[in-house]
């Protein structure tokens, strides 16, 4: 059994890492790039908050802010799910950024939820509990967030080592979380406008890719071995 991939450090033996811009050594430079991704990743939240706080976010600033944070959570989930197909199809490996992308999705989901709780509902806990229990789309959204919690908590090196092969199994939860996030978006709007359907379609394609991958995967055993964690089809026995 291969050890799970460490999200920020691609295996040294990875066959194709053409994107490494300056030198093959992982290390400080790479960490700097990941930190840069965090900085860039938080720009939408900071900028949108600034617009809202200075009354430049339209007539319903709380709703706009809440919506924007949720949308970015879904976008980062999608980017996280893109890492593996991108590598398998094009050879471009962004796996060192995957943990940061996943955590950004979690942070945005947390901010989205906080905005709903504090700015939107004014901490009316009774109303929130009623919403979560009675409104299916809120139940589903909350479920997506709850699923992201263990993924965020175990995203560090300690838990990757500690959980071993179970780490990869646990992190398949991202598939369900992304599907729930997309459904939450579709169900939150009236009628069937295009935008939520486009996001749902992208998530569907990325999940279908995982479902269908066993059809061609055997040809790629060499590279598949390098990254058994986080990407395999749920329930597929891992072979090394």
């Amino acid at each position, binding site marked *: 059994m291969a050890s799970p991939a460490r999200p920020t450090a691609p295996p040294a033996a990875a066959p194709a890492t053409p994107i490494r811009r300056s030198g093959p050594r992982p290390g400080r430079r790479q960490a700097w790039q990941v930190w840069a991704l965090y900085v860039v990743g938080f720009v939408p939240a900071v900028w949108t908050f600034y617009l809202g706080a200075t009354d430049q976010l339209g007539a319903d600033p709380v709703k706009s802010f809440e919506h924007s944070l949720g949308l970015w959570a879904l976008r980062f989930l999608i980017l996280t799910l893109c890492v593996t197909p991108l590598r398998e199809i094009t050879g471009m490996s962004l796996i060192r950024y995957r943990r940061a992308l996943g955590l950004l999705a979690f942070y945005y989901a947390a901010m989205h939820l906080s905005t709903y709780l504090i700015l939107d509902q004014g901490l009316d806990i009774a109303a929130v509990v009623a*919403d979560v229990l009675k409104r299916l789309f809120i139940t589903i959204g909350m479920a997506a967030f709850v699923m992201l919690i263990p993924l965020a908590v175990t995203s560090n090196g300690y838990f990757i080592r500690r959980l071993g092969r179970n780490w990869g199994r646990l992190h398949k939860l991202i598939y369900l979380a992304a599907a729930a996030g997309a459904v939450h978006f579709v169900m939150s709007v009236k009628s069937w406008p295009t935008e939520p359907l486009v996001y749902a379609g992208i998530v569907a394609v990325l999940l279908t890719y995982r479902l269908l991958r066993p059809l061609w995967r055997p040809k790629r055993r060499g590279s598949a071995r390098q990254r058994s964690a986080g990407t395999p089809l749920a329930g597929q026995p891992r072979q090394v």
Partner: protein
Amino acid sequence: AAPLSAKPSAFKVDEKQTSLKDITTYNNFYEFGTDKGDPAAYAGSLTTRPWTVKVDGLVNKPGEFGIDDLLSSMPLEERVYRMRCVEAWSMVIPWIGFPLAELLNKVEPNGSAKYVAFETLQRPSEMPGQKGFLPVLDWPYVEGLRLDEAMHPLAILAVGLYGETLPNQNGAPIRLVVPWKYGFKGIKSIVRISLVDKQPPTSWNRQAANEYGFYANVNPEVDHPRWSQATERRIGESSFFGAGRHKTLPFNGYGDQVASLYSGMDLRVNY
């Protein structure tokens, strides 16, 4: 929008009026797109002259009414109404309009007329939302009222707001305002009004009957299946720091005037 004079009226809620900017940039008018900003962005090209409203059906004197004739002949009043959207936000809007009953009386509904059906313009060349590959609604948009609701003095046809003619994104040149019902009943850019004997189809009811009823009276007791209707965000007040949630009032606060229209009806069934 051209200046439009109107008499003040007693129908005036004493609450802070939503700003003209918010009223004209935060709209649901799916003929121009589903985003709240789409109507302000795309409705500018809508041609509102010439414009006629055809009033027909079970009436003695059907007719077509030119918009400018209506503006000059009808008793225009300013009505400051609460507007409660089914999406749980609200505004306070100074409409200019005239009672729908004034127009209906002109055509003399006959004894068999029981309902009033309304229809919006269908003109995809100027309404990009009607061109969509996956239409969000069946076009044209249609709405309806029971005849006694339509004849109620609170029900108006609005032709202006804030002292000027109606901006396109708010339903120019003439729209329905029924303040005790959710905003989607206020059909915009009306081209036809028909008196009928059966309950007419309504757009949102056709789209999702379990979510949007024919009556659509504002009711904090009856939740939308996907969200509570107990409270509302008052647009313009719900700033970032201190979300202004208001308790939603039965019939949007107009219960004293309209509750009797529904005596004996189960408003949970007839939502």
